[in-house]
C-alpha cells in the first residue's frame, strides 16, 4: 500500500489488473488445448496399463518379495514433498510478512493441492488389493504410520483446498461482477455459486482475513506432519539406509527444495503463456532463487548428516548400502541427484545473473528431476540389501528394473496431477487480483 491515490487513478489501476489477470480465464488458446490433449493421451495410456496391473496383479511391475516398494512409493514421496511448497510459500514466508510472494502464492497452493491429491491416488495404485481400500477405515489401526499418513494427507488436502478457496473469494466476486458477458453461462454460474455472495463488506473481509490467518498457522504443523509421517514409513523399519533418526527433517527440507523447483517451473510457463510479466516479475524469480538457495542449504546440511555419519562408521549393513550409492550400481543416479539436483542449483543460484526467469526455470527442472530420482534412491537401494542373504529365488528378485507398465502408470499419475494444475490455472485467476490491487494502493472494498 503505497501513497494514497485518487479514486480515478485507483479505478484505472484496478481495471488493468483485472483485465490482465482475467484474460486467460476468458479464452482457451490452441496451445492450451494441445497441452490438455497430450496429458489426456498419457492418462489414457496409463489407465490401459493400470487395467493390466489390475488383471494380472503387481506381477506386471518389477517389484518382487525383496524390493517390494518401487517407483510408485518413490513417486508418492515425491508428490508429498512437492506439495509441501504450498505451506512453505503461503504460510512460512507469508506469515513473515514478505510481500513478494503475493503473485506466486496461489500457484504454490494450486501445486500443493494437485500433487497431494495424486499422492493419495498413487498409494492406491501401489496397493495389491485396491478393492479393499475401505478396510483402512473399517479396520484402521492407530499404531500404523500408514494410518497416520492417510489421516494427515486427508487433512492436508482439506486445508489446502480451503487455503486455495478462501483467498479466491474476493476474486470470485470480481469475476461474478465483471465477466457475465465474456464467458459461457455455466462458467459464470460456477463463479457465482463459489463466490458465496461475496460483496466485500468490511465484515466479510474481517472474517476472511482471520480465517486465512488461522489456517495458515494450522497448515504449518499439518504439513510438517504429513512429510514427517511419510518419512516414518521408511524410518520406522529396521533397514540400513532407512533406520535413521533425522529422516523427518531430512524429508521436510528436501520437500522445500522440490517444491521451490516446481514453483519456479510453473511460474515461468504461466508468466510466458498468460503474459503476466508485469506481475510475476524478474524480482519474483530473484526472490524465489534466494529462497531456493536457503532451503537447499538446509537440505545439504541434512544430506551431510545422513550420508557422512554412517559413512564415517561404516557399520556392516550401512557400508553395503553406502557402497551401492557411492560407487556401486546406483552411483550414477546418486551423484547426478546430489550434484545436478543440489550442489549445482545452489552454486548457480548464488549469482544474481542466474536468478533470472529462464535460468531459474532450468534450475527448477534440474531440481525437480533430481528430487524425483532422489526419492528413487532413498526407496530402492535400501530394499535391495536385505539383512539375510537373498537365496533360492529367481534372478529378478535380486534387482529392480522398472517395467514399461510401471513407468507408464507412474507417468500417467504425474500427468493427472499436472492436468489438475492445468485446469486450476485456467479456471481461476493464477494471481490474486484483490491482493495485487491492494498492494498497488487500490481500495478494493470500493472497487469490487
Amino acid at each position, binding site marked *: 500500500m503505497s501513497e494514497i491515490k485518487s479514486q480515478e487513478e485507483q479505478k484505472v489501476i484496478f481495471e488493468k489488473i483485472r483485465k490482465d489477470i482475467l484474460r486467460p480465464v476468458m479464452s482457451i488458446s490452441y496451445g492450451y488445448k494441445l497441452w490438455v490433449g497430450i496429458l489426456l493421451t498419457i492418462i489414457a495410456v496409463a489407465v490401459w496399463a493400470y487395467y493390466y496391473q489390475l488383471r494380472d496383479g503387481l506381477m506386471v511391475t518389477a517389484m518382487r518379495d525383496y524390493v517390494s516398494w518401487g517407483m510408485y512409493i518413490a513417486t508418492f514421496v515425491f508428490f508429498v514433498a512437492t506439495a509441501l511448497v504450498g505451506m512453505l510459500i503461503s504460510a512460512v514466508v507469508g506469515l513473515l510478512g514478505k510481500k513478494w510472494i503475493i503473485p506466486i502464492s496461489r500457484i504454490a497452493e494450486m501445486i500443493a493441492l494437485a500433487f497431494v491429491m495424486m499422492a493419495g491416488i498413487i498409494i492406491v495404485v501401489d*496397493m495389491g488389493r485396491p478393492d479393499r481400500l475401505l478396510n483402512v477405515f473399517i479396520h484402521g489401526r492407530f499404531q500404523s504410520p500408514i494410518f497416520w499418513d492417510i489421516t494427515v494427507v486427508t487433512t492436508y488436502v482439506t486445508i489446502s483446498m480451503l487455503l486455495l478457496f478462501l483467498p479466491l473469494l474476493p476474486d470470485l466476486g470480481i469475476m461474478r461482477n465483471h465477466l457475465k458477458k465474456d464467458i459461457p453461462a455455466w462458467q459464470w454460474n460456477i463463479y457465482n455459486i463459489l463466490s458465496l455472495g461475496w460483496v466485500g463488506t468490511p465484515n466479510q473481509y474481517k472474517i476472511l482475513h482471520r480465517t486465512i490467518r488461522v489456517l495458515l498457522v494450522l497448515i504449518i504443523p499439518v504439513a510438517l506432519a504429513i512429510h514427517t509421517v511419510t518419512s516414518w514409513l521408511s524410518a520406522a523399519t529396521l533397514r540400513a539406509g532407512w533406520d535413521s533418526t533425522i529422516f523427518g527433517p531430512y524429508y521436510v527440507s528436501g520437500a522445500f527444495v522440490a517444491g521451490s523447483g516446481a514453483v519456479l517451473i510453473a511460474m515461468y510457463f504461466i508468466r510466458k503463456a498468460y503474459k503476466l510479466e508485469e506481475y510475476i516479475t524478474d524480482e519474483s524469480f530473484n526472490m524465489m532463487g534466494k529462497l531456493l538457495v536457503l532451503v537447499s542449504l538446509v537440505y545439504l546440511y541434512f544430506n551431510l548428516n545422513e550420508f557422512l555419519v554412517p559413512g564415517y562408521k561404516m557399520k556392516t549393513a550401512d557400508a553395503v548400502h553406502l557402497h551401492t550409492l557411492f560407487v556401486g550400481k546406483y552411483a550414477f543416479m546418486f551423484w547426478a541427484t546430489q550434484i545436478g539436483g543440489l550442489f549445482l542449483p545452489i552454486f548457480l543460484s548464488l549469482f544474481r545473473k542466474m536468478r533470472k526467469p529462464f535460468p531459474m526455470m532450468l534450475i527448477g527442472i534440474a531440481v525437480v528431476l533430481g528430487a524425483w530420482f532422489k526419492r528413487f534412491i532413498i526407496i530402492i537401494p535400501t530394499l535391495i540389501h536385505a539383512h539375510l542373504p537373498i537365496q533360492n529365488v529367481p534372478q529378478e528378485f535380486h534387482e529392480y528394473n522398472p517395467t514399461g507398465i510401471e513407468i507408464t502408470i507412474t507417468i500417467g499419475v504425474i500427468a493427472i496431477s499436472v492436468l489438475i494444475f492445468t485446469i486450476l490455472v485456467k479456471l481461476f485467476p493464477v494471481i490474486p487480483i484483490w491482493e495485487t490491487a491492494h498492494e498497488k494502493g487500490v481500495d478494493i472494498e470500493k472497487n469490487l
Partner: protein
Amino acid sequence: MSQNITPEVTSRRNFLKKFGITVGAAGAVTSLGLLSACVNDDDEMVSLLTTDGQTVQVKKSQLKVNLVEMQERGREGIPGKKYVMVIDLAKCLNARLCMAACQGAHHLKPEQHHINVLQMQNAEGTGFYYQPKPCMHCDNPPCTKVCPVDATFKRQDGIVLIDNERCIGCRFCIAACPYSARVFNWSEPKYVEGDENRVYDIELNVPQKKGTISKCLFSADQLRVGKLPYCVSACPNGTYWFGDANEDAVTNGTSKETVRLSTLLHENAAYTLMPELGTKPRVYYLPPKDRLFDYQNTEKNYLGEEEHGHHA
C-alpha cells in the same frame, strides 16, 4: 517335484475331519460345532468331499458362517501355549524337505518361501552352514506394528498370522521385517483353480489370494490338532525341535524325542537371529558345531548337487 500334486481334495477331507464336521452319506448335513445348520436365502451350492469319500452339496451360506468362526478362532490362538522352535544348525544338511512340505501345504509357488534354507557364512574364511529360516514369530514383531488394518497380528500363543481376507496389499510388513520372512502373491496363486470353493483357513493361509501377503504360520492348523508343523515333521535330519515354552519341552520332528527346552538352550548356548534389533524372536538356533557334512566344499550340498547360493 511337488508341482504335479493337487492336494486340495484330500485336504478338504482333512478339513472336514479336523473340525469335527460329519457329512452323512445320504447328503444330510449334520452340524457339529462350526457348521451351523441355518438355512439362508443364499442358495448357491458348493461341493464338498465327505470323510467317506463322497461328494455332497453344501449351501454357501453355511460355509460363510464357518469362515467367520474360523477367523475368530484363528485370531484368538490357543490359550496357555507359547510355541517355540529350536533349529539345530549342526544337523541341517540342506535336504530341503521342510521347504517342499511347507510349499505343498500352503499352496506356494517354487519361489515363495515361508521357510527358506540359506547357505550362510559368518565371516570370510569361516566355514559355511545351512540355516533354515522360517518366520521368527517375534515377541516384538516389527511387521504387525506397521500393519494399517490388523491383517497381520500376534496371537496369544505367540504365533504371528496373516489374514488374507483383510490384507490390502500395502507391503509395509515386508519392508518392516528384517528377516525377509514374508512373501507376496504378485500374481494369481498357484492352485487358484482347485481352491476357488475352499473356505479360507486363516491358520493355513489357504487359499492364497492375489495381491495379499503370505507368511510362515508355524503351521497353526497342525498345532490346533496337536501335530508338529509341516516343516518340522518333514525334516529327515532332526534339525527341528518344536514345542511349548510353558511346558519347557520341545520335541524333535524326526526322532520324536522330547527334551527340556531350557536344557537344550543352555547346553548349546543357543542364540537368536539379529538380537540387536530387539525383535525378540521365538526361533532359537543351536550353533553349527560338528556339522555332519563337508563344510569346506562350498560348491556341493550333501546330495552332491551344485549350490548356487548368494552371499550377503
